[in-house]
């Protein structure tokens, strides 16, 4: 029988991909999700009354804990919503780490974000300390969590890995993100529209690659920081162009190219590039080329659409 690994945030985009991957590899994933998500254990991590010791007792022995739970909010960086983010992402994470270390000596993998990095001319590697996170509560909360976990591990000797994914795309992604919006436009036969000048650099990583980094960090009991980023950063315009080619490849409308709409401001990306050498060397992972991942996502979207048409009365 394979090892048991607890996945906290098991019902989300990354959580689903991670559970599938762990199961494929003969690991037994045990899921924790918010109430109403049909996870193995439903727990509301936004409540200050969240009791990780009680959860550890109910769950039983696990070799590892992979912590993904987060709320993605795009509202104000201050306010009740931002504070709930801090509770789920930082406070609950460090208390969970300690409870499962105390009871089972479980290895802990924290899924952070590249949003903890600040602007930099140089490629950002894991040795770069957490800089000034971008001004949304998500990045600030991930930064707080990483730092709290470090001081806690210094005290307890607990084993800890931090994985920092970039923008995560792939089958299962919510429709209101750049890549699904570009792909949907292409399927509808329309040129995808890129706001602003389209030259902002961004790094996209396939959801399965993130799951693989998390799973490897857990099974190898790796410690330290790992960038879970794509093969390289690209401009938003390039990403849109690749979306056009991916849709064409799976049999969708051909000959489309993105168009710029300079009248609407582009999003203020921080133009970062990342170094994932340590991830490849220590975890033995490889980044899927963006085009391959986009073809996979386009194929999935087409199947979803076909399924919905088939299900219609």
């Amino acid at each position, binding site marked *: 029988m394979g090892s048991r690994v607890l996945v906290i945030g098991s019902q989300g985009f990354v959580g689903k991909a991670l559970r599938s991957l762990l199961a494929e590899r003969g690991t037994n994933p045990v899921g924790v999700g918010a109430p109403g998500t049909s996870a193995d254990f439903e727990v509301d991590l936004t409540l200050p009354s969240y009791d990780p010791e009680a959860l550890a007792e109910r769950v039983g022995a696990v070799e590892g804990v992979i912590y993904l739970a987060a709320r993605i909010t795009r509202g104000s960086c201050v*306010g*009740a919503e931002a504070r709930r983010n801090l509770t789920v992402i930082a406070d609950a994470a460090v208390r969970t780490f300690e409870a499962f270390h105390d009871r089972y000596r479980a290895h802990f993998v924290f899924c952070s974000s590249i949003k903890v990095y600040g602007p930099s001319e140089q490629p950002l590697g894991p040795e770069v*300390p957490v800089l000034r996170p971008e001004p949304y509560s998500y990045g600030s909360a991930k930064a707080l969590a990483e730092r*709290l976990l470090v001081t806690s591990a210094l005290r307890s000797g607990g084993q800890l890995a931090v994985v920092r994914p970039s923008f995560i795309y792939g089958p299962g992604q919510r429709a209101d993100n750049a890549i699904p919006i570009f792909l949907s436009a292409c399927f509808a036969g329309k040129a995808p529209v890129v706001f602003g000048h389209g030259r902002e650099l961004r790094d996209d990583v396939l959801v399965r690659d993130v799951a693989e980094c998390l799973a490897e960090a857990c099974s190898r009991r790796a410690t330290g920081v790992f960038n879970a980023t794509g093969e390289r950063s690209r401009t938003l315009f390039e990403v849109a162009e690749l979306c056009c080619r991916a849709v064409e490849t799976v049999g969708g409308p051909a000959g489309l190219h993105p168009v710029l709409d300079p009248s609407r401001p582009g999003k203020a990306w921080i133009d970062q590039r990342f170094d994932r050498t340590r991830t490849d060397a220590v975890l033995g992972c490889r980044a899927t080329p963006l085009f391959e991942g986009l073809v996979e996502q386009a194929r999935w979207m087409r199947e979803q659409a076909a399924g919905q048409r088939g299900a219609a009365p």
Partner: protein
Amino acid sequence: MKVVVTGATGHLGRSVVERFARAGCAVVAVSRSGRAPEPPFGHPALPRMETLAVDLCSDAAVGALADALGPEVTLVHLAGSRPPGTSDSTRAARSALLDLDVMGTQRALEAASRAGVRAVIYASSAEVYGIPQTPDAVSEESATRPISDYGVVKLSGEDHLFAFAAESAVRAVALRFPAIYGPGERVSRALPSFLRAVAAGRVPVVSGDGSEQCDQVHAADAALAIERAATTDASGVFNVTDGEAHSVRALAATALEAAGLSGAPEHHPATKPCVGAHLSIERARRVLGFQPEVPLAEGMREQLAWLRASGEATA
């Protein structure tokens, strides 16, 4: 100018309230108890000021604090649950830090966002740097790798401060203080424990060889830096110390001198590794025009006098 000061009854808060009040500012002294801050030792009673009871650990704080703020008001946010340089954090202590220093700062900033403010000045800590990577004086560009929960929550407070500043287009300043000493300091750390020892006629006991750096700033100088930050148009992060490098050993020797005692400090084996950093205050001098005014020997003599007068020397 109107200034709203959170943490107004604390060691630093009292000096800050005094400085602004004597400069003729309208001051609202905010604390959990709502008590009027005592004037610092040896100073006359403070001019009239408003007081406001706000518990930043509760969401009700947002509305209550917002009522005192407005577009012409400067918010000086000092409230925190532990002074720097004190003992190692426990899980219970961390929980208090998260409640007040992280969530409390969030609530203070939400109030500022709701009411609008002229500027926010935030008391951060030298503990955000952790163990210095080079022997050079630590500048504001140095890497931040806190090894204490206190350093972690203060750095998180800075993150929220500058995120708020970007979102609301408000001027924001974070001042990174080392241990703040001066009359009224009641925490247990090297400098006050050396003074308590000499006040009782004993020699100070130094852990290890005492060669590690231990920056200091007098509460009056910390308050001066806050006033400079409030009255200039600067923004960003600034180190604020007395501008001198002090070793722990030198603090012990200064304590002996302050008490007029002869002899040398005793050295006991260190129970934990001693780490310390020396911060550069060049940016604060250049941009804020900050010039520290209280030399260490003078400040320690003043603190010793307070210890003796207040009866705290034997506590």
